[in-house]
């Protein structure tokens, strides 16, 4: 597990260094994820320890958003004065985005399935 955690942190660090040096607006961990993915493709998959540690981290992914989410208390004033446009925009936009994306991809999948038959 220690080994796997080290691998994850090293890839994050490499990603962090790349975005700083290249001055990209993309966060380091996302670059790290891309690089680890490429490494897995080249090397033919993760070993058991990396797989196990990754699954452990991802099984409680929700927990990791709690500290940032609690930061909502810093914006109590703005939320109070603009709660209606904010709530409506978030709800409508989120539902619409999910619906449009899912519908679009499902149409493709169905069409492909039909042409395969």
């Amino acid at each position, binding site marked *: 597990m220690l080994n796997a955690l080290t691998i994850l942190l090293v890839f994050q660090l490499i990603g962090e260094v790349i975005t700083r040096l290249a001055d990209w607006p993309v966060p380091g961990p996302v670059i790290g994820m891309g690089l680890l993915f490429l490494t897995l493709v080249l090397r033919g998959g993760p070993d058991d320890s990396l797989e196990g540690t990754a699954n452990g981290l991802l099984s409680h992914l929700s927990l990791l958003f709690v500290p940032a989410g609690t*930061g909502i208390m810093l914006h109590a004033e703005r939320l109070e004065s603009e709660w209606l446009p904010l709530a409506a925009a978030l709800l409508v936009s*989120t539902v619409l985005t999910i619906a449009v994306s899912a519908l679009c991809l499902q149409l493709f999948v169905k069409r492909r399935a039909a042409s395969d038959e």
Partner: protein
Amino acid sequence: MNEQSITGLWVYLSTRPLLGLTMTLVAYGIAWRIHQRLRGHPLANPVLMAVALLVLVLTLTDTPYPRYFDGAQFVHFLLGPATVALAIPLYRQFNRMRAMALPLGVTLLLGCTVAITSAWIVGAWLGADERTLISLAPKSVTTPIAMAVAEALGGLPSLTAALVIATGILGAMTAQGLFRLMRIQDRSAQGFAIGIAAHGIGTARAFQLSPEAGAFAALAMAANGLLTAVLAPWLVPMLKHWISH
């Protein structure tokens, strides 16, 4: 123990990282148990319940957020390695994704545009001010990218962080109901849609639906993060020009 020593103990503990860290884990533990008790019902979102509980406790004890975060940052820090770890489920679905590259690309472009534009239109129509609208625009992507985009376009990065989390929670809460309503059964379409609209919190939810949905959500989250960073600086000035309140 008299009252004074209890106050003294509180003053001591509230300046240590231990308390913020423990509070985060306990609040999440309680929220997770309620979530399980309700058989994983999407409305009983664990992030929402844990955040509500923590805001309540911090407000009642008059603890400022930065002091809480001194401890909570250890949990927050794990977001980095967890994001890197998403490479593993991505790798598992690689062959399927390669076969679907074109449909995934088209869906992503459409979903990303809808996410930014629809939030702007609704917010502007209901009278949000321009800084709020800019902070709202990148709400569908993972916090660090969204904050960077908001900052570059003149929004409020810390407001963006809160809106991103709220979006993730809303996405996780509404997705399943929507899929049922619209008869979307394909796991890859479900996962990909949640990932575009609701980043990591949506991805966490998608992993509960199936590993396949989770992997597609992780892909969508990463790809939408990149696309939003490219598209928003170009879309937002247009929206500003055409649709202001």
